[in-house]
């Protein structure tokens, strides 16, 4: 099967800055693909390479098997939901949504009908006559989505689309985007720096750092079995364990990772890793503990309501051997 988007050894350099550095990537048709990474990691440049706003310095890009280098954005059947929505301020909502059909020469009644349907799809029916300036952030987001979807793109690109929304709205939109993607069957490529968002929505996640892909896999893979220290650290605040520490408890001289929720806190006289409780952070459903184990700073998450030692008290940490994940990086 041909990939929806395929990168072969793609680089994009801006002067001496390697924004994207020799990236290989295959996105399966119909999947919800997330590009996750800190700002400046190259994920947005990758998205812009797919959209056609950037051209690769080296390598080749194919969209559904067709070569895309040198093809301008307006000849790609790919649409983008921009980070700050980029709605046309001089057009009303209906004309914004119908824009793509208008420039393709679709007649007025037909394109307005399609735009109305797209607005209904994003649950904004009857908002057509308003100006973008009269809408809330969440509503603009939906209009931007409708404006892209009305063109029935082969690939939909979303550039941090939920970044400007508040928490509640963001959670709602995550669910909606996910179900919309399932219903439409369009390939979604989603850029985010929020690991929770990537894990909860995507079928597969690519973790970016310094213009390179560190790891591609399902959310479970990425979360449970990070390959590198960077992935372990960036995707959920995992405890990164140095090789010497891992050697002692798992018998291999490699970097390891241990999820905070895998650590149990015990009495000071028991068996395990001797540590001292530094501070506690109440997070509602759970409590996050900062611990000092022989100079190594560890974090543990325990359910709220559990009996906790006092700050500064000595404790013993235990964990299940299987929960200690060994990474590819050797010491």
């Amino acid at each position, binding site marked *: 099967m041909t990939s929806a988007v395929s990168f072969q050894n793609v680089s994009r350099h801006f002067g001496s800055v390697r924004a994207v550095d020799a990236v290989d990537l295959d996105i399966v048709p119909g999947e919800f693909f997330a590009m996750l990474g800190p700002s400046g990691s190259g994920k947005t440049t990758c998205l812009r390479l797919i959209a056609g*706003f950037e051209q690769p310095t080296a390598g080749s890009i194919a969209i559904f098997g067709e070569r895309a280098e040198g093809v301008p954005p307006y000849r790609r059947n790919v649409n983008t939901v921009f980070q700050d929505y980029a709605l046309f301020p001089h057009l009303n909502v209906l004309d914004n949504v119908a824009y793509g059909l208008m420039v393709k020469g679709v007649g007025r009644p037909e394109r307005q009908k399609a735009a109305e349907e797209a607005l209904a799809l994003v649950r904004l029916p009857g908002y057509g006559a308003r100006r973008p300036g009269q809408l809330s952030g969440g509503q603009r987001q939906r209009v931007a989505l409708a404006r892209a979807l009305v063109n029935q793109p082969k690939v939909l690109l979303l550039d941090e689309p939920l970044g400007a929304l508040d928490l509640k709205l963001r959670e709602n939109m995550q669910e909606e985007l996910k179900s919309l993607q399932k219903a439409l069957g369009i390939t979604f490529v989603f850029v985010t720096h929020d690991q929770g968002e990537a894990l909860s929505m995507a079928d597969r996640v690519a973790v970016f750092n310094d213009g390179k892909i560190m790891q591609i896999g399902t959310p479970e893979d990425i979360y449970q079995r990070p390959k590198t220290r960077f992935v372990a650290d960036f995707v959920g605040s995992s405890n990164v364990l140095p090789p010497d520490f891992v050697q002692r408890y798992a018998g291999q001289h490699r970097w390891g990772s241990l999820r905070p929720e895998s650590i149990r806190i015990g009495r000071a006289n028991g068996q395990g890793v001797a540590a001292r409780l530094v501070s506690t952070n109440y997070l509602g459903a759970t409590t996050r503990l900062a611990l000092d184990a022989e100079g190594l700073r560890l974090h543990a998450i325990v359910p709220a309501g559990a009996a906790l030692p006092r700050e500064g008290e000595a404790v013993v940490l235990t964990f299940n051997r299987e929960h200690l994940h060994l990474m590819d990086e050797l010491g």
Partner: protein
Amino acid sequence: MSLDAAMPRATAPAILPGSGGVRGGLSDLFWRRPQFLLLLMLLPPVLWLGIVYIGSLFALLLQSFFSIDEFSGLINREFTLKTYGDLLQAANLDIILRTVTMAALVTLAAAIIAFPIAYYAARYARGRWKALFYLGVMLPLWSSYLVKIYAWKLILAKEGILTWLLAKLHLLWLLDAWLSLPIVGGNSLSVSSTGTFIVFVYVWLPFMILPVQAALERVPGNLVEASSDLGASPGQTFGNVLFPLALPGIVAGSIFTFSLTLGDYIIPQIIGTSRLFIGQAVYSQQGTAGNIPLAAAFTVVPIVIMGFYLWGAKRMGAFDAL
């Protein structure tokens, strides 16, 4: 800690004492009642505009309803529409039509020339190039208007630089063919309507470039990308996104170029034919002819035209993007 050194925590009061004196008192007063400050800042310019500008405009309007006694040359201060009747004579209508046509063409040409320059400056020019752009646009405004016009006379004259250049390029026949045309032609460019047009466009161009550049500067770059992303070719993006969003700037610029051309009386006098423009007509009516009412009536024409122009622009939605 350095913070403690700068302000000892134990002794610092929660509310600081006023700085005292007239200045301190005024600062506190203006903070509590910001409308005082606003009034103080706005009063002088409002008085200036109200009395000197609106007042003289009103006096002008009043004068245009007086008439002149043709025998004595004295002004008859009684309300009449006779002067406006005189304005509609064929010779005067001819002046109005010539001036309005020139103003419209100058505005159109200025907009067409200004747009790419303004677009470059707004989209691509950064740092040193941006400074160079502002310098290039503003520099002509620093030198005297008369110097520039006489410089153009030298460029456009029969023995001038342009004729010399075209002769070198073996293109003199093109100039001669153009000059042999009626209306736009003449003995040389410096005594033709074409010459007047060229100089008008040159002199008013900065007034078009700057507002268009300001309007384009406010268009977020991602709107152009969004348009392209949705399948619009560069031409369609220009027509559907850039032009409508730049239109308030173009209209603002055209107010300058249009009204400045309508009122100017020096350029057509130095460069061009002997046929009059509104400005020249006003100048001669209030000067040698001593017909102040007719001069006033002539002056009302550009005001009325600009009024209609702005009304039309608003109706066509030129200010919707503001």
